[in-house]
């Protein structure tokens, strides 16, 4: 958001204050924007300060949370913005992770360079997968992507690829140190790298959604026939959505490989794909910042569930999820919107 809107907002507010009933809606909307922006800045400050306050283990967990958030952001572009359902994003995550690991392990590529490489590879894979998926809708597409999630880890075990993938033994990756003699330990450094990539990813996603392309993607979601008659190339945009979505998830996978320092086919069990969908729904489908909450949910809630009951951790997790869906069926994004809506209504009635 630029400065113009802020001044317009203050102007609107003054106006609203002057004549209470004339312009309540924009005033409410701008105050919402303000709240959101303040929340965003607060989150960023927390994000920047956290690694100096927390122990290495918590930093590691926060890094993983951000990585999942990036992956969920990618899924959100596909599902939330473009309306295509995917149960197979764990596969793109795996492809990204393997791309990074193989580049580092076999070719000695620097870890930062593996991120764009993993993104490109996943974009191509996602785009190509998007082409045949054009013929599939709804549950059928979900099933096709499910198959992708099941097949991909198996592919990494196959003997023809074993030279690169090391089969089931997996690949061990060295942890990078902070460059330029920065006074950061590797955990803190990787956290900041992830935070930077995450911010970049978020800004790009936001701009994408706000652009002509983003509107086309949403038009395809809301009414494909109308979109087509408006001149939107639905086939191209659907495949593109798959490609971009896979790119995000692939970059997250590459970061995940670097942070965990180890990958094997078992790292990318089908449960990962489901976890990403859970994160998407919990955070709020179609609401980009929701990815952060989704990432936090899939990172921390299983641990809470385990603390409550070790043997029944799966069941506890399930119960938490059901309660969550019962209480806030539209995810945290929906809850926040409803809360802000109620807030602005109250200010309107005042």
């Amino acid at each position, binding site marked *: 958001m630029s400065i113009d809107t802020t001044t317009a907002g203050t102007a609107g507010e003054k106006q609203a204050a002057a004549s209470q009933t004339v312009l309540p809606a924009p005033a409410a909307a701008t105050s919402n924007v303000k709240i959101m922006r303040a929340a965003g800045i607060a989150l960023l400050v*927390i994000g920047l300060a*956290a690694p*100096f306050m927390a122990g290495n*283990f918590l930093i590691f967990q926060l890094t993983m949370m951000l990585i999942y958030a990036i992956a969920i952001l990618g899924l959100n572009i596909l599902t939330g913005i473009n309306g295509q359902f995917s149960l197979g994003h764990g596969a793109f995550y795996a492809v990204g992770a393997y791309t990074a690991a193989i580049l580092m392990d076999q070719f000695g590529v620097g870890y930062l360079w593996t991120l764009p490489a993993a993104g490109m590879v996943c974009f191509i894979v996602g785009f190509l997968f998007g082409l045949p998926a054009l013929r599939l809708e709804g549950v059928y597409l979900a099933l096709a992507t499910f198959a992708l999630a099941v097949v991909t880890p198996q592919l990494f075990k196959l003997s023809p690829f074993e030279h690169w993938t090391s089969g*089931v033994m997996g690949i061990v990756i060295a942890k990078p140190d902070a460059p330029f003699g920065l006074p950061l330990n590797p955990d803190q450094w990787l956290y900041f790298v992830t935070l930077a990539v995450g911010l970049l990813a978020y800004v790009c996603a936001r701009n994408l959604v706000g652009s002509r392309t983003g509107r086309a993607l949403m038009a395809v979601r809301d009414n494909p026939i109308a979109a087509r008659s408006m001149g939107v190339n639905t086939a191209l945009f659907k495949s593109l959505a798959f490609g971009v979505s896979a790119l995000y998830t692939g970059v997250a996978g590459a970061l995940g490989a670097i942070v965990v320092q*180890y990958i094997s086919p*078992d790292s990318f069990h089908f449960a990962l794909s489901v976890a990403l969908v859970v994160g998407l729904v919990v955070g709020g489908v179609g609401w980009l910042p929701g990815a952060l909450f989704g990432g936090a949910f899939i990172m921390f809630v299983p641990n809470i569930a*385990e603390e409550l009951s*070790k043997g029944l951790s799966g069941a506890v997790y399930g119960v938490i999820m059901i309660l969550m869906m019962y209480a806030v069926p539209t995810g945290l994004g929906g809850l926040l919107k409803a809360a802000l809506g109620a807030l602005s209504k109250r200010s309107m009635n005042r």
Partner: protein
Amino acid sequence: MHNRRNMIKYVGAGLVLSAGLAFPAISQAADMPGVTDTEIKIGNISPYSGPASAYSTIAKTIEAYFNKVNEEGGINGRKINFLSYDDGYSPPKAVEQARKLVESDEVLLIFQSLGTPSNSAIEKYMNMKKVPQLLVATGATQFGNPKVAPWTMGWQPNYQSEGIIYGRYIASEMPDAKIGVMFQNDDFGKDVLNGLKAGLGDKADMIVAEASYEVAEPVVDSQVVKLKASGANVFINIATPKFAAQGIKKAHEIGWEATQFVANVSNSVGAVLTPAGLEASTGLISTAYLKDMQDPQWADDPAAKDWNAFMDKYYPDGNKLSSFTTYGYSVAQTMVHILEQAGDDLTRENVLKQAASMNDVKLPLFLPGMSMNTSETDYFPIEQMQLMKFNGERWETFGDVISGEVGG
């Protein structure tokens, strides 16, 4: 959400302090991390959820055994605090849990972390942190390499040793053998196969056919048919339980009259032989290192009575038929032995040293003639096994204890 609350607290503190001021977040580790005058903290990672959750019986048995030890006064007056976390058999989760145990709970060591992938994932971290990763629950031969990973040690006979034992037996007792091998295409299958070839030595050409399968395959029928067609008269079935049962059943159905060997991981009567058919399973050969509690020859054995009493009192929900309970019981005893040897010097260095200097240690449930030996260059505690044959009802051991020392 205590993490979030902490985070907010930290941030509050952070705003008071000037931002951007870096200070080391972790306090200096004490000389004996995880140890006080009354307690020894031991970490564990097991799959309580997910595809391999059946293995969690082992950790539950270990916990029950440590409860027994604590009730009887602990180790030199210290009680064992056993912290066991779930990784769902997922390597990234195992890394997270290992870091939690080491950095947050500050355990003395991690004991019996389960599964090849999970142990591979944390091996580098544990060695970098110099925290012992002791008696890991996998037979993969990689976990016994003091040169590469001096803080990581296995316990059960490694897969290669098992292959060596089959090879040595066939080379000496079955001179006319033509061997057909079916193996799972992963580290486990290949380790046993490599061991088999090593054990056969210059008679390795006895192997006339090999057929591998992927874990993702639904059935292994075609592999069995192919091996029979090769004219083999010995069928070595190096498979995990589901596939081992399929292999035994199929060989019986197509009338393949071969001497069959089945890998140690798949010799459970309940989980493999019964589904495969007890008739089809009769005559199978496998290996053992622990006493089979169903075997009547141990009915009056004092060790077996102790075990039964332990199960009744401390783990009444446990399945006595499951070999995981005897396994967990024995491995917990090994851990207690190492801690007792370390005495009051419970530094990580000394505990590792004690683990690497076991000399002729015999556990109550070991088959007679077996013992554990380790040294600074030998990180494989158990390398002997005894062959056994299935008589249609239960396993019967035969012959002597055979050594499968890797490279020995």
